[in-house]
């Protein structure tokens, strides 16, 4: 009797629990926010293509999005020479492309040659351009390959996270992949179907082949509201990125669906135009080139209010160029920015400005007034601009706001330099400071406050140039970190960019999806797509 009761109990528990058990198979369904421009990993230049490359491409070294550490992938080990010019890989044996073509060092050589060929104009390959001269790729054995660059490259191994190896011999060319999924079907403007790569090399701890799901259905959907409606209906299992309003609403409806990875890497900042040839009034150029003026503006902006009101609290005041989410490179010695309008006025007075009758004037009696430009169609930025306008009015500064369509704004920022101050956001996809060389080097085209300088305009820009060059060729990560910490310190002291807020990473994950754990690095919600499982109940519904 007791035995029968036990059996019945086990059967009962199993019958209740079975829908909750995750199992292999099924389809993962979510949206891309744009049409991928290419399926060729060498030419990837947009987010949709990058996400596809992540899901389909096999790389030699993978940056673990969660730990932010490098892990062996197709290369079981690698070694970098002392002069940091050569990297040698030991490749994994017995690996096949999705079409059955074997993977060898010849494929790595083929991919690298294609990537570094100047006529290819590969955005991924640009990161490897270290100096004048030719890159040599030597495939000494089927499982060994070494690449020698003309000049040292700091953080070299990290760059290989973006290099999806292509087959040199497969008739399917770039459609033969080494990643967890391959492209099975593509309906332009509508959807992409990815299927499980039967030859994927990776297994879980129990020896089960990965990925767990059989396929991924990617719908191309630009409208975020429609995406959210479909997620609510249960048609989608995740949303990779939500805006704060959507996230808050979802959280109110069902807090378990709204998942945040905390502060992300993306920041919003404003800067003043310091280009000497810009068509601005001389007295305005003089203000913008004054450190005290920029620091005073920074002090007078209430970042906490920006975070609380514009981002519903899903953002935090920005310390500087690197978000705390970038665990290794963030300079934790930086002081958190504070809101201090009185301190701002004191700084301005020291710099020769005077505040009288609720108006700030400079030494020569010009009223301090400038135009803040931002891109149109971005409600969050427009709200931030309006709040900055009110904050600065407290210290007698009049701010006019102009919104322009993006091409017009870029034209003014990069060609005519006909603007006074600009409010925009920076999307950081690379943790390494080498990824922002063109921002910090005075000769860089993204050195927005005064780009493409022949020689550094200020001593502090010269120091940043020197530090950035030194960190790029430093022998150890510790040395690099020390140099880049100093760059962050100078940026905080000089405020060429006035960093406002670092935005949180906001995602939505269905309870039917098991194993999802959003992170700050892209792709935030499906970085571990190969180990995601669909709940058995959902699988039943799919069948």
């Amino acid at each position, binding site marked *: 009797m007791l035995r029968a009761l036990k059996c019945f109990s086990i059967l009962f528990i199993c019958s209740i629990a079975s829908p909750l058990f995750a199992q292999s198979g099924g389809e993962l369904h979510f949206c891309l926010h744009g049409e991928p421009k290419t399926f060729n990993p060498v030419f990837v230049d947009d987010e949709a293509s990058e996400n596809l490359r992540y899901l389909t491409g096999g790389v030699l070294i993978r940056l673990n999005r969660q730990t932010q550490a490098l892990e062996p992938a197709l290369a079981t080990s690698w070694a970098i020479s002392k002069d940091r010019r050569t990297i040698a890989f030991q490749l994994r044996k017995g690996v096949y492309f999705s079409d059955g073509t074997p993977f060898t060092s010849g494929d790595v050589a083929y991919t690298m040659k294609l990537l570094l060929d100047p006529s290819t104009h590969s955005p991924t390959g640009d990161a490897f351009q270290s100096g004048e001269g030719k890159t040599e790729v030597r495939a000494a054995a089927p499982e060994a390959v070494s690449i020698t660059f003309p000049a040292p490259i700091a953080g070299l191994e990290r760059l290989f996270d973006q290099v999806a190896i292509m087959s040199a011999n497969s008739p399917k060319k770039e459609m033969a992949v080494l990643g967890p999924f391959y492209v099975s079907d593509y309906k332009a403007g509508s959807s992409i179907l990815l299927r499980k790569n039967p030859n994927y090399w990776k297994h879980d701890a129990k020896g089960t082949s990965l990925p767990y799901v059989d396929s991924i259905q990617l719908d191309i959907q630009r409208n975020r509201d429609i995406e959210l409606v479909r997620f609510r209906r249960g048609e989608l299992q995740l949303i990779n990125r939500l805006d704060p309003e959507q996230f808050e609403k979802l959280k109110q409806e069902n807090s378990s669906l709204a998942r945040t990875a905390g502060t992300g890497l993306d920041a919003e900042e404003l800067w003043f135009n310091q280009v000497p040839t810009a068509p601005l009034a001389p007295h305005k150029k003089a203000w913008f080139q004054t450190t005290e003026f920029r620091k005073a503006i920074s002090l007078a902006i209430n970042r906490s209010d920006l975070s609380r009101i514009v981002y519903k609290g899903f953002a935090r005041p920005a310390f500087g160029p690197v978000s705390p989410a970038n665990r290794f490179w963030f300079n934790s010695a930086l002081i958190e920015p504070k809101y201090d309008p009185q301190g701002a006025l004191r700084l301005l007075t020291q710099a020769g400005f005077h505040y009288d009758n609720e108006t700030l004037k400079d030494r020569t009696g010009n009223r301090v007034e400038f135009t803040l430009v931002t891109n149109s169609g971005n409600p969050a930025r427009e709200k931030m601009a*309006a709040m900055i306008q009110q904050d600065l009015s407290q210290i007698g500064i009049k701010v*006019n706001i102009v*919104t*322009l369509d993006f091409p017009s704004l870029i034209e003014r920022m990069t060609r005519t330099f006909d603007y006074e101050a600009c409010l925009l956001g920076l999307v950081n996809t690379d943790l390494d400071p080498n990824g922002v060389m063109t921002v910090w080097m005075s000769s860089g085209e993204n050195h927005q406050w005064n780009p493409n300088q022949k020689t550094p305009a200020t001593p502090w820009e010269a120091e940043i140039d020197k530090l950035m060059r030194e960190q790029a060729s430093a022998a150890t990560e510790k040395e690099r970190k020390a140099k880049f910490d100093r760059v962050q310190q100078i940026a905080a002291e000089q405020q060429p960019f006035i960093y406002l807020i670092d935005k949180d990473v906001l995602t939505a994950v269905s309870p039917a999806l098991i194993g999802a754990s959003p992170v700050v690095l892209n792709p935030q919600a499906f970085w571990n797509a190969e180990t995601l499982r669909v709940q058995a109940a959902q699988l039943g519904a799919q069948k």
Partner: protein
Amino acid sequence: MSTTRVLRAISIGVLCAVLGMALFAGEISHYSYATQFRELPYAAPSSAHLLGTDALGRDLFTRLIYGTRVSLLLAPAAAFLSTLIAGLLGSLAGMIGGWCERVVLAAADLSMALPLLFVLLTLRAVLPMDLSPVISVVATFVLLGALGWPSSLRVVWAASKAMRDSDFLLLARANGCSPWRMILRHVMPNLRPILLAQFWISIPVFVLTEATLSMLGLGVMEPMPSWGNLLRGLEDFSTVGANPWRLAPLVVLILVVICFQLILPMREELA
């Protein structure tokens, strides 16, 4: 009194009330349209804030009446400008004919073929950056007026062309009347009903175009309110159901557009 007349009387009353509120906005509300009560974003209506507050905690009622002032005063000005251009060019083309007619009609066709929104975007982008919000508002409506004439021109041209061979113009011409004098003294007064109709039709069109531009973030600049940028608050439609008072700008816009349409026939009759 017929139903139509009652409706027209009500429309005029509503328009006068709305216009009165807009003109005396400073006396009606003691808040500034730009003041942000940051502790009260998206506040519900209360005695302190009759229509609640917007995302930045600004008083919505104050912004609505100031926005009405902007939209309701500048839209007729833009309509006047476009009707004036259409009247002058249309009557000139209709009266003179020949190459003049061809050039004017070609210009009108070209203007109509260009997507107005993109032309406005381009022109707005080349305007100087250091414009104050007031000048920016005026510039937006001047652009609307300066670009909104082609469809009215077609109507005016057709009417003036029909008038070209009329007896009274034949008589004027026989008396040695110059073309400009004929246009100003004889043609224009006879085109008055058409011009008035075009003027009244254009007002809601310009209000809606400004609203569209503001929805794209290219109309009236912050912090100045207009119906257009107030309507941007409705972008997040899912929250409107729970906060129906946020529909107030839309209600006022619809009301004013309907009122303009209802009084339009009366204007024609009067003319």
